[in-house]
């Protein structure tokens, strides 16, 4: 009976768990790691990026994002949208072609892989014959032309991927008509480029590596015209009016060829080397677009003088007399130009450049061609991310102020609307305003709007102006001298080189109610900042804190502290520093907390912790946590680097020595040599056996290193010393499993400026298991965590229960323990490491709302372990609720970068430049929901291609129509099938029979987007 009842309760709890928790990886923010291909659909207004890891990502209007992943991990080398369709084709490194489509499902589009194809050549042919180097998606939408390394062009029918052998352009048929005196006759090399005639879709240009360009008629199956280029070909461009062709070459020149004149042109109409006289690097791609009134735009990448600027990554834009060489900080992958409306007539409105580390969009309509700020694909890693901090539910007032000061920083950006607007964003507005703050190696803190699917940059704070650094901030690389040639202009913000690693931001704490911000860095610097809407010139007040308290016997071997500027510094509107604490020794700050109501900042390093009163600008407390035996804490990061270098040098020396000794014994006798080899091998083997991967089993002791490192700091208003009077308190947890509690005496608000804040030690807890303390939380009488400072004052949290007894939750890497307060005695605990062998890496408090009932919710503890598993623990009973594996255990930086939100979501870095967003809550999920509709067929008024299309090959068009019809009917039928109608099955059968799509269906592999489509709690 009892058993039965308990079972009932458990099943109720299980049901509740389902309503509370649900794990989804929802969206990837930031810039894809190692992009390798770019595609663009003018009709869909979507851009596609393929990456080296085989991912494909589509972006349209802000919020419209799709992601797919090839089963193969091969790099995506080319992406081509089928003109006027929702399909796209990708070419991978392994020579396979993949067909993707955007399929509407429950009113939301999904990116699905629907077919794959590998070109098979004639039997016995070398692999180069079928190695695809150029792809042309024909405007008819049903042909794919594949140029190969061997010089052949294969024609494939899509979407079924049927090879049309009769249509292919063989090398022989081209070669046979070339004049005998052409230099490259014997070896045309690979097909570098394929271009369709913009006026006659039945004609294509085939460009061979050796320089030959052939205009081929697909119907007549013969060369119409030949251009005998002699320079190594890189790419071609068919000028939209159809009158001429541009070819660009590896020597940095481009040529113009006139169409419709002699059948064989021996020399180009015009040759130009834009960056002239001295040898230049290749022009890899060239585009020329005419404008309605005015000179055409000529845009090409590369072509820089080899000797002086060969290392620059440039795209040159020339329009009339204006000539700019856009200078990128990373390698250029590809670019395209967005034209205003119709593909063939519109003026160029924007240049979209995919560089290896960022996407740059240049507004070509506005004067000066300013850069546009992208609503997505933000380069998070423009300086390496060193830490991140998430603040949920930002009050509207602070939000607007941050946005306003951010907009003041964005004056150099274009005001034009974002040019890519494909698809509709159907996701509901985010339920709240969330900020993600990232700290960077160069001392900047970036504020991101993390409320929705698009991680949008709001504001950038730089802390380096407070300090003297080696570089002068006025020395802007941007300013090229007047009349410099080429006319460089720096674009993009990716800058991986940090001037001074000590500037790196390690900890951030923002109070969303007061606008106070504390930022701490690598060299023990702690800045307290305040949001100010006006520019201000002020000197920052500096306090030097000796965390060793003058102890003898320790000598810091690491970097020196940053030298602060003594003179007043002019701060632009935004967060302006007013107080600076410099720790001595200047070790990296490992813990930081700010209490805006008490106006106190607590900070900790590997040597101790301190408390700073930023109202009165004085240090309240310094506590050294160093143990006498801990010498490693004094090393500092630099000396350890040195020791690694030393050991490396030693091992190199050893290798060299062994090589030398072998050489000395050099002998012609092969038997002897063999013997030496065998001995060497045996020695190497022995060395390997001597040092297997092994782990020492040893209990932690107080002598261990870095036991004094402060891991967490916490402010609480609780019953610290007796159960009737509550006091303000500061709690600190160390790496060696110690917890220190100090009672704080705060003056009354009226006397806050005069009377000093004092701190007295009240408690010390030494955890027996000595694991690092990573979190401290005080739970109120109801078992709920104490609210954040000012939260109650702003009516955003109910005041904590001060009637019941409070508890202290100590989270160590190995255990969760609840202690009673004020008399500290162990109440409950949960062991993690002893049972599962995993350790706590990240921990956060979150509120989980039920997805079923609006009013029910629970707070819980979210934990990420070193194995990449997420656990949710109930409070205050610390029972495991759910667990999900989230991050690969090998991905240490991913695990270390994880931050949790207050509503059960989280972010972690999947690459230096990308955050993955995940959700543990069943109620709050932020994920893309978007719809892309099949574009209307091109309007007849502008469609000269259609005129051509109907002319020579009516068959193909008709066939295509059939195909479309049957496909759409199949879709319709499928939708009906949902109604469970008996007759529908027969209809499906009928629709599928004799239908070209069967082939597709067979090849179809459903590729679900990550995560399921969930209805939002609202």
């Amino acid at each position, binding site marked *: 009976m009892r058993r039965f009842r308990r079972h009932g309760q458990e099943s109720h709890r299980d049901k509740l768990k389902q309503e509370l928790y649900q794990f989804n990886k929802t969206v990837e923010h930031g810039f894809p790691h190692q992009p390798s291909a770019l595609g663009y659909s003018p009709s869909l207004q979507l851009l596609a990026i393929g990456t080296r890891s085989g991912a494909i990502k589509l972006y349209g209007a802000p919020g419209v994002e799709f992601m797919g992943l090839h089963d193969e991990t091969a790099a995506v080398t080319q992406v081509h949208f089928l003109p006027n369709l929702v399909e796209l084709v990708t070419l991978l490194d392994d020579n396979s072609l993949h067909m993707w489509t955007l399929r509407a499902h429950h009113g939301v589009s999904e990116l699905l892989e629907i077919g794959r194809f590998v070109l098979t050549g004639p039997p016995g042919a070398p692999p180069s014959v079928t190695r695809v180097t150029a792809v042309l998606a024909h405007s008819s939408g049903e042909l794919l032309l594949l140029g190969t390394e061997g010089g052949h062009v294969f024609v494939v029918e899509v979407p079924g991927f049927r090879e049309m052998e009769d249509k292919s352009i063989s090398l022989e048929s081209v070669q046979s008509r070339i004049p005998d005196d052409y230099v490259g006759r014997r070896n045309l090399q690979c097909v570098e480029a394929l271009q369709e005639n913009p006026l006659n879709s039945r004609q294509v240009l085939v460009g061979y590596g050796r320089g030959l360009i052939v205009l081929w008629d697909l119907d007549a199956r013969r060369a119409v015209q030949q251009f005998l280029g002699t320079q190594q070909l890189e790419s071609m461009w068919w000028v939209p009016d159809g009158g001429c062709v541009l070819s660009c070459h590896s020597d940095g020149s481009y040529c113009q060829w006139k169409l419709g004149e002699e059948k064989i042109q021996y020399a180009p109409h015009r040759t130009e080397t834009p960056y002239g006289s001295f040898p230049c690097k290749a022009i890899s791609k060239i585009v020329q677009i005419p404008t309605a009134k005015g000179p055409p735009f000529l845009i090409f990448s590369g072509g820089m003088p080899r000797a002086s600027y060969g290392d620059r990554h440039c795209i040159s834009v020339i329009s009339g007399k204006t000539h700019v060489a856009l200078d990128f900080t990373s390698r250029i992958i590809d670019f395209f130009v967005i034209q205003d409306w119709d593909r063939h007539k519109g003026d160029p409105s924007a240049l979209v450049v995919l560089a290896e580390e960022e996407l740059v969009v240049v507004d070509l309509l506005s004067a000066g061609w300013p850069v546009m700020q992208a609503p997505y694909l933000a380069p998070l890693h423009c300086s390496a991310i060193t830490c991140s901090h998430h603040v949920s539910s930002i009050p509207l007032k602070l939000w607007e102020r941050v946005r306003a000061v951010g907009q003041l920083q964005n004056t150099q950006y274009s005001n034009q609307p974002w040019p890519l607007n494909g698809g509709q964003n159907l996701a509901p507005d985010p339920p709240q305003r969330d900020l993600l703050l990232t700290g960077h190696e160069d001392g900047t803190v970036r504020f991101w709007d993390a409320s929705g699917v698009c991680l949008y940059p709001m504001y950038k704070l730089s802390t380096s102006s407070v300090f003297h650094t080696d570089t002068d901030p006025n020395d802007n690389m941007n300013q090229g001298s007047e009349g410099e040639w080429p006319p460089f202009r720096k674009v993009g913000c990716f800058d991986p080189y940090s001037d001074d690693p000590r500037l790196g931001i390690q900890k951030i704490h923002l109070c969303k109610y007061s606008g106070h911000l504390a930022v701490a860095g690598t060299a023990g610097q702690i800045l307290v900042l305040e949001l100010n809407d006006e520019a201000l010139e002020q000197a920052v007040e500096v306090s030097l804190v000796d965390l060793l308290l003058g102890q003898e016997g320790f000598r810091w071997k690491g970097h020196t502290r940053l030298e602060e500027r003594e003179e007043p510094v002019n701060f632009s509107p935004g967060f302006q520093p007013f107080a600076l604490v410099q720790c001595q020794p200047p070790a990296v700050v490992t813990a930081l907390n700010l209490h805006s109501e008490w106006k106190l900042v607590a900070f900790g390093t590997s040597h101790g912790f301190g408390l700073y009163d930023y109202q009165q600008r004085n240090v309240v407390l310094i506590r050294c946590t160093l143990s006498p035996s801990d010498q490693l804490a004094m090393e500092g990061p630099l000396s350890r680097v040195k020791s690694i270098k030393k050991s490396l040098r030693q091992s190199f020396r050893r290798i060299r020595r062994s090589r030398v000794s072998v050489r000395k014994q050099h002998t012609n006798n092969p038997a002897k040599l063999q013997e030496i080899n065998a001995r060497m091998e045996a020695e190497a083997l022995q060395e390997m056996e001597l040092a*297997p*991967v*092994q*782990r*020492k*089993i*040893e*209990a*932690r*002791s*107080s002598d261990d290193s870095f036991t004094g490192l402060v891991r967490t700091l916490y402010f609480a208003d609780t019953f*610290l*010393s007796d159960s009737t009077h509550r*006091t303000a308190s500061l709690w600190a947890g160390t790496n060696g499993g110690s917890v220190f509690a100090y*009672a704080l005496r705060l003056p009354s608000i009226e006397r806050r400026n005069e009377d000093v804040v004092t701190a*007295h*030690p*009240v*408690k*010390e*807890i*030494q*955890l*027996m*298991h000595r*694991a690092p303390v990573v979190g401290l939380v005080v739970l109120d009488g109801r078992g709920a965590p104490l609210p954040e400072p000012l939260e109650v004052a702003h009516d955003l949290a109910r005041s904590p229960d001060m009637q019941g007894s409070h508890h202290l939750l100590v989270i160590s890497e*190995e255990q969760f*323990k609840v202690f009673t307060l004020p*008399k*500290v*005695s*162990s109440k409950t605990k*949960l*062991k993690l*490491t*002893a*049972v*599962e*062998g*995993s*350790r706590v890496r990240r921990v956060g408090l979150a509120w989980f709302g039920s997805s079923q009932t609006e009013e029910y919710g629970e707070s819980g503890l979210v934990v990420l372990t*070193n*194995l990449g598993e997420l656990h949710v623990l109930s409070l205050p009973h610390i*029972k*495991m*609720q759910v*667990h999900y594996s989230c991050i690969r*255990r090998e991905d240490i930086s991913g695990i270390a970068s994880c931050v949790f939100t207050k509503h059960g979501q989280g972010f972690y870095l999947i690459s230096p430049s990308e955050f993955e967003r995940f959700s543990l809550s069943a109620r709050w999920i932020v994920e893309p929901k978007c719809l892309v509709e099949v574009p209307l067929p091109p309007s007849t008024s502008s469609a000269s291609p259609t005129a051509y299309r109907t002319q020579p090959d009516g068959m193909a068009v008709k066939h295509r129509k059939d195909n479309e019809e049957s496909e759409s009917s199949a879709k319709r039928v499928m939708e009906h099938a949902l109604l469970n109608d008996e007759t529908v099955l027969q209809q499906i059968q009928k629709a599928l029979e004799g239908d070209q799509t069967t082939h597709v269906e067979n090849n179809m592999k459903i590729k679900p987007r990550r995560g399921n489509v969930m209805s939002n709690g609202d």
Partner: protein
Amino acid sequence: MNRSFNKSQSLRYLDCNAVEVKSKYGAEFRRFSVDRQKPGKFDEFYKLILHIHRIASMEVMIGYADVHGDLLPINNDDNFCKAVTSAHPLLRIFIQRQEEVDYSNFGTNTMTRRKKAVVTLRNDVNRKRPQIRIGMPQDFRPVSSIIDVDILPESHRRVRLYRHGSDRPLGFYIRDGTSVRVTPHGLEKVPGIFISRMVPGGLAESTGLLAVNDEVLEVNGIEVTGKTLDQVTDMMIANSHNLIVTVKPVNQRNNVVRSSRSSGQSTDSSGSAGYPAPPPGSLGAHGLAGDELESDEESDIVIESSIKRPTPKRPPSLQRDHGSSPAFRESNGSLHKILSAMRIDPRHSLALPPGGVEEDGTVITL
């Protein structure tokens, strides 16, 4: 109680029940005899010795030479009885003052060697053998034990390592390896965790129960299959205060042989690493009380100081008044010393009895 303090030499031949005793203290000898069948109690014998040698006010240690020539202690009824019954022909007693006792002499063939040394001067082999120091029984504490012999298969061994109070390192290394398991599909190679190295002088080595290349099967009742080397390392370290390792010894010759049942079953079961948490006392099923496992780890040390006392630096000075605390009476008032010792290594606190001291605002919970 037959006491015959007759010094007559003829006694030996007259009464076969009497055992001649030759007792030596310093350079003095005393001779007497005791009844072989009824030697009496140790206490009485001890008093007798003190009386005979006229050293009543002294604490002495009584030892005797056994038949093998080893010096063995006489300190209870049992070994006294043994000494008397095994004496042949006479019982040689050696008396040392308690504070001068050289324990290193006990049990180490000392008596014979002394004799032999006279005969063979070149018997260097014996002389160079390091002397093993054996403490008094009251000084012994458990270091390790083999547990759950009755429920484990004979090929497995569950070893408990006690580390309390000792500053001796646990001292072993583990590595990845492959082990062969019998499965329904035949023999299968599976990854396993093995002991790779012993730290000389470490606890693990000194027990003699663990050896290099022993396969680790469980840690405190949780199977290690499917866990990485790092995970197992973390588990062992997390349990280091009271580590219970189930191993499959590489040397299978020293296994405990059970007559009752020869189960070929693998280690079973109840100690599975299931989620969310293994049932409390999963080891309890193996006959080990869950409480026992918990007992010696939970003593986190809490030092609380009064808020009124403005002592910015630790440790809070403590009063010497222990009237209220029976637990600390033995510590003779130097609580401060204990406390500071604990600060350096709180493991020492385990030697202290549970309980607490409470005095004007300063609380110590142990």
